[in-house]
């Protein structure tokens, strides 16, 4: 579904990604971990071109994402993204946040979008907040709404950029629970996170990044049970 070939990204003189090769198949749940500054967020943000790579190729559903001629907006419709800071639109109600993109892009009628939003909001138990503004919600509520806002576009893959890092500890659970549900339903997911428990439980594959490279990867059992690379051993000894 997503193929990354020799991906490189530099900010000025500073090279953040140093040649990443990766293939993510339909239904996989790939969790990316690594120390801060390792380039894991940049890697994720390159996938939907929020950061434009300075080298290499990214393919998504048979289309070359990194080609200048590719209409990235069309591809982004199929790649949902969830941010660390939620990034809900503060001037719109919860319902408008969810229906804005599908209605504006004429993918759904207003009625369809609202029905869909209602179904999604009921699913996370927040239908009564439909007319509220983001400023009136807790962090956990905001992030769950950000997730269903992305889901309302019926994406083929969901990208999560440290979705629980900005949350109070007691709200992490509700967000992870929703993500686990999505995983169970077969959603293809790429998750950058520090939640090792989530990685162990949900991931089909875990990547360890450091200094712009993927140093080690594997299914969670062997990844956490028998880490090979000394940097990974060192990292895990600090976070576990």
């Amino acid at each position, binding site marked *: 579904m997503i193929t990354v070939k020799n991906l490189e990204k530099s900010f000025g003189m500073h090279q953040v990604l140093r040649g990443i090769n990766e293939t993510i198949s339909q239904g996989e749940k790939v969790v990316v971990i690594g120390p801060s500054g390792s380039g894991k967020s940049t890697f994720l943000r390159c996938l939907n071109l929020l950061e434009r790579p300075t080298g290499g190729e990214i393919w998504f559903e048979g289309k070359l994402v990194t080609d200048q001629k590719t209409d990235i907006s069309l591809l*982004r*419709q*199929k790649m*949902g993204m969830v941010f660390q800071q939620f*990034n809900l639109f503060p001037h719109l109600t919860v319902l408008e946040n969810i229906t*804005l*993109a599908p209605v504006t892009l004429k993918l759904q009628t207003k009625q369809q979008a609202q029905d869909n939003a209602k179904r999604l909001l009921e699913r996370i138990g927040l239908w009564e907040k439909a007319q509220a503004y*983001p400023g009136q919600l807790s962090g956990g509520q905001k992030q769950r709404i950000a997730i269903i806002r992305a889901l309302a576009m019926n994406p083929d893959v969901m990208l999560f950029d440290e979705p629980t890092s900005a949350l109070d500890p007691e709200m992490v659970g509700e967000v992870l629970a929703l993500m686990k549900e999505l995983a169970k339903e077969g959603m293809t997911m790429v998750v950058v996170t520090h939640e090792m428990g989530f990685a162990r439980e949900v991931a089909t594959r875990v990547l360890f990044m450091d200094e712009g490279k993927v140093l080690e990867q594997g299914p969670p059992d062997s990844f956490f049970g028998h880490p090979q690379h000394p940097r990974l051993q060192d990292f895990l000894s600090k976070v576990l």
Partner: protein
Amino acid sequence: MDWLQKIGYHLYRTFVEKDRYMAFLKGIGTTLEISFFAVLLGTAIGILVAVVKHMAKNHRFLHPLEWLLDAYVLVVRGTPVYVQLLILNTVVFASVQNKILVAVITFGINSGAYVAEIIRAGINSVDKGQFEAGNSLGLRDGTVMRLIVLPQAVRNILPALGNEFVTLVKETSIAGTMAVNDLTKAAERVGGATYDLYTPLLSIAVIYFVMVFGMTRLLNWFERRLAKSDNR
């Protein structure tokens, strides 16, 4: 009661005699007309300039245009509006008979430069994550700007924008130096006819004040209304 009679006499001569109040009413109408359309033109120019300048950050082909817009803002802000009016009236639009139109264009172009800077500050005040969230949903840059960023930007800059509109209304008082019968010109003409300039000038000072005061109240009301949905 002598002075009261005097004031009454002057007011009578200025407003009632020969239906001179009509000149003031027409003057108010002209001033409001120029102000209204100049605000519209200025806002349109300001948004356009600010958005193009913002987009130029990511699109190299817009750089020459950005340079041009920078020059526009620099020149307009660096020269007196009165000089701009004289140049546009006597040089650029010398053959245009509709002097109200010339005034609207002058004040619109002038205000546009200031509005552009205000809106640019407003766009910068919106978190980068808002652009990214909009883009990540598949919305194009223009749509993100229109539906997500500008509404938030305008809310943040409403006081500054209101200030600019108030300034514009007052600045139109120099339009009378061309053959435009705005409120200030009306006062001068009436004063010329009655050999009494004090009364009409003091009167229009009050009228301008009331107009600006009303505008300020309107803008405050608008601000409060926007703030209601703003629970950030």
